C-alpha cells in the first residue's frame, strides 16, 4: 500500500483528500488526445501499406 509521499501515492489537492489521478473504467476507456490524433492520421490514409513501401508513400 502506498503511503503519502511515496512515488506511488496519488497526489491530492491540499486538504481535500481527493486524488488528482483520474479513475476510469477499463471497459469505457478511450485513448487520450495524442493517441487519438495518431489514430486519425492512420484513418485518413487510405490504401494501407504494401510490402516494401515506405512510410511516406500514403502521405
Amino acid at each position, binding site marked *: 500500500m502506498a503511503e503519502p509521499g511515496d512515488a506511488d501515492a496519488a497526489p491530492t489537492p491540499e486538504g481535500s483528500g481527493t486524488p488528482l489521478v483520474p479513475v476510469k473504467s477499463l471497459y469505457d476507456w478511450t485513448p487520450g488526445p495524442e493517441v487519438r490524433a495518431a489514430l486519425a492520421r492512420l*484513418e485518413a490514409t487510405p490504401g494501407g501499406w504494401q510490402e516494401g513501401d515506405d512510410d511516406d508513400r500514403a502521405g
Partner: protein
Amino acid sequence: MTTVRVEAPSGLQMTGHYRTIVTGYFREWFAVHFSKEATIEHPNLRGLLWSEELASKLLVETLMRWHPAKEGHRPALLVGPGAWVPRRLGIDERNMNLAGKDGAVYHEGEVVGTHTFFGLSKVYQEAEILAGEAYRELRRFGPLIRQELFLQRFEVAGLDKPFKVKEAQDTWAVPVTVAYVINEAWQLVPHTPFVKRLGAALTLGP
C-alpha cells in the same frame, strides 16, 4: 531484443478476420512472451512469469475474461478490443480493375481496427514497466504481426497516460494502443448470367 515466434492463427485462413481471433492472437502472443524469463526484457519483470496455473504471478488475459474481484490483486496485462471501422476505397466499394466475364462484380474495402493493452498493478512503476514491455514488443515485432495477421498496416498508436482502475481498487493502469488496417475483398457472383435474367424479366413483364 527477444525472439518470440507465434504460429499464424489458422482461424484467419478459414474464416477471414474476426475481431475475436485478433484478440486471441494478441493474448497468446503475450502469454508466450511472459512465460519464459529469457524472453522478458525488463529485469524487474522476470520474476513475474505467466503460466496457466491459478498461482501464476502475472495474469495475461483478455479484458472480457478478467474478473477484478478474483484476479484484481495480481499484476496483469489485459488485451482489450477496440472499434473496427470500415473505410471505403472507391465508389460502391468496387474494384474496377477486375471484371469477370461471368458477370461477377469485385468489391474491395478496408477496416481500421484498434486493440488496447493495459498494464495493471497495485504498484504504479510495475504497471508502467508492464505497459512499456508490451509497447516495445509491439513496436519491434510489428512487421511480423502485420505479416502473420495478414494486415495492410500495423502501428503502435501510443503509450497513453496512467489512471486508476474503477473496477479494481488501488490499481494503476497504463494503456498501449495499436491500430491496424485490414483489407477486405469479395465478389458477388450472379446465380444466372445477365442475359438469361433479362429474358425472364421480358417474359414475365406486363
